[in-house]
């Protein structure tokens, strides 16, 4: 269990760093979502199911959706050709 947890913790750091250095916003948001999900699993391991449920619903769910909507509003989808969302 400890090894699995260590693995997840390293995953967290990798996700956080990739959010920092990713150039495309869409990718960054998806990585942020996975960051939240990993955090959620770690909280299950740390015996806090209340937090895990909340983080799954909020961090990976609602916050990420809000990020996506913002991105759509500011026409930030896509790379060089940004007509994909229609």
């Amino acid at each position, binding site marked *: 269990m400890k090894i699995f*947890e*260590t693995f997840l*913790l390293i995953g*967290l*750091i990798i996700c*956080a*760093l990739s*959010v*920092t250095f990713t150039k495309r*916003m869409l990718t*960054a*948001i998806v990585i*942020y979502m996975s*960051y*939240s999900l990993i*955090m959620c699993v*770690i*909280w299950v391991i*740390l*015996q*806090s*199911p*209340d*937090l895990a449920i*909340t*983080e799954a619903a*909020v*961090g990976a769910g*609602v*916050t990420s959706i*809000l*990020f996506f*909507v*913002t*991105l759509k*509003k*500011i026409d*930030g989808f896509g790379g060089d050709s940004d007509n994909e969302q229609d």
Partner: protein
Amino acid sequence: MLDIEVLFTSHLEETVAMILFGIGFSLLLLNRNLIKKIMGLNIMDTAVYLFLTAKGYIYGRMVPILTDGITDPNAYTNPIPDGLVLTGIVVSVSVSALLLSLTIRLYDRYHTLDLDKIIMEWRKEEDA
């Protein structure tokens, strides 16, 4: 001074939480893209929550929900950090929603997410 072994054996979660806090903090302070700043804020907050949750954990104990009528305090992990984190998560969601709506309005008006550019423009206008 710095005992690496202690950091990675008995304080693993805390160390990772502090590293994440630092990453989030730098992202919030240094990045010029507003959306990245908001992500940095969220990473910073979740790092604090990870730290608190790790503080509530005790080896070999159960989730703090009454099972089989055992009311012995030595059978359960500490419920206090969980409660604090629940409160904190709500705060960070509210703050992120507010900042994201500010981002939308900013983009509506200036078509950029970089505050420095806008402020530079203002200075130019003031001097002109």
